[in-house]
């Protein structure tokens, strides 16, 4: 029994290690491809960046705004009703900035992007590989890492940054309006409290998180999208892409928060 547990754990550990090596090789190959960036004509990836930004950013606006409104409302109602009980209602702005701007905004946006675009990227690439479109590109001398991965990273960084900013704004304004149905707080007081609570660190961490999510989400999803060797493996790798990107994004979120606020 113990032997079996050790064997299973050991095997899983080796598989994780092999996976990490394989992923690092993939990342290295992208850096190698970046050396040929100077040969790349921007016009060939311009459309991909525009389409990907539209899908990841613009098309996701509605769902991001609705979720921001609901989560913002919930947090603000909880804060407005609970803080006075502890006599710390003066920290309302700080609490909202900490919860919404620092953590909830970037993470919730990343989760929405993973669910919508991450799965779409992995599926699209897997299908392209299966139908030998990627092989065709390679045989035309097109560097697929540049043509497929690079535009998606650029589009994701732009989209996620935009979505996080919109999420925060909607969560604060919308949440405030929803909270008015439960408790009354003057708009100018609420606004001033928020402005006073924001620091440069908060803005810098938002930008840094956008960048990190914008890189990791398409990178991991492209990696798994390029993995399937047959049709039946496509859903397996798409599922892996979503779950592992989700896991890595939470770790990235913790790491960036630690870097900015703990160190």
């Amino acid at each position, binding site marked *: 029994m113990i032997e079996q547990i050790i064997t299973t754990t050991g095997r899983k550990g080796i598989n994780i290690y092999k996976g990490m090596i394989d992923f690092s090789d993939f990342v290295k190959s992208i850096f190698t491809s970046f050396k040929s960036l100077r040969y*790349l*004509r921007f016009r060939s990836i311009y459309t991909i960046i525009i389409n990907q930004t539209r899908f990841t950013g613009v098309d996701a606006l509605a769902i991001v705004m609705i979720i921001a409104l609901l989560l913002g409302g919930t947090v603000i109602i909880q804060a407005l009703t609970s803080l006075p009980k502890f006599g710390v209602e003066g920290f309302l702005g700080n609490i909202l900035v900490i919860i919404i701007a620092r953590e909830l905004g970037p993470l919730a946006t990343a989760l929405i992007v993973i669910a919508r675009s991450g799965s779409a990227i992995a599926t699209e690439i897997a299908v392209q590989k299966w139908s030998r479109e990627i092989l065709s590109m390679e045989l035309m*001398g097109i560097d697929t890492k540049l043509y497929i991965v690079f535009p998606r990273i650029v589009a994701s960084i732009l989209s996620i940054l935009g979505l996080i900013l919109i999420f925060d704004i909607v969560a604060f304004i919308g949440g405030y309006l929803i909270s008015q149905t439960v408790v009354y707080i003057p708009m100018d007081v609420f606004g001033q409290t928020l402005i006073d609570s924001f620091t440069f660190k908060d803005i810098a961490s938002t930008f840094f998180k956008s960048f990190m999510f914008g890189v990791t989400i398409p990178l991991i999803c492209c990696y798994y999208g390029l993995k399937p060797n047959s049709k039946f493996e496509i859903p397996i790798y798409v599922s892996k892409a979503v779950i592992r990107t989700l896991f890595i994004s939470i770790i990235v979120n913790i790491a960036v928060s630690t870097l900015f606020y703990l160190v």
Partner: protein
Amino acid sequence: MDGVILELQNITYRRDTVTLLDNVSFSLAKGDNVTIFGPEGSGLSSLFDIIIRGDANFEGDVLYNGSSIKSLGYFELMNYKKAVGYIHGDYGLMSNLSVEQNISLPLDYHSSMSASEIKKHVGQIIYDLNLDHCRKLRPFDLTRSEILKAAFGRAIAHDPDLLYIEHAFEDQCFLNIKSLIDVLTERSNRPDKSLVMITYYPQNFIDISDEFIMFFNGRIVFTGKKGDFWTSDNPYLVQYRTNSIEGPMIIL
């Protein structure tokens, strides 16, 4: 060697313990067209691995315009692939791009032509291949012959000196691809353009081929000129030509 665009020198290619190509040598002069054929499993797809894909794990050497492609670095290999036109049986058109975008893709990526020059050049290819009616359609909306024509248009967009076509005409109605055959025939008559046609149906390419090479079990079993294809009494060729199971090739 002057005047030779592609040369395979004593190629032996193994995967695991299986020998896929066994001491294969042939050369293709500039302006010549060769049709390579043979039954399934005879090594035709392995030629793709070493000539086109750039697999370097083989004995011997492959020369393109006199230079070995075996030792090419990452970027040189990209440039080599850019210089060779290639079409495979699955065609591999980008499913999210229209016919026009598919054909202009290699030019958009590599060429120094301006956008208007590319549009004009691609427009001419589309006209020559009789694809005007579907230039804005995506592969999903195309017939098999239109997909082949679009893939062909993409492969010749940058006017490569060597065109490598692998089983792309199988399962096609030749009446529907007449415009393509006309363009291919015209191209095959040019002294600076060469063609490697990999097929199971060599008789369809008698008019455009200068040379025929037959493979079996990873070895070349017949080499001959256009006239030899019908007249040679090579037992392998006779068995293939007559579509018979009786002969030196044991077909499972």
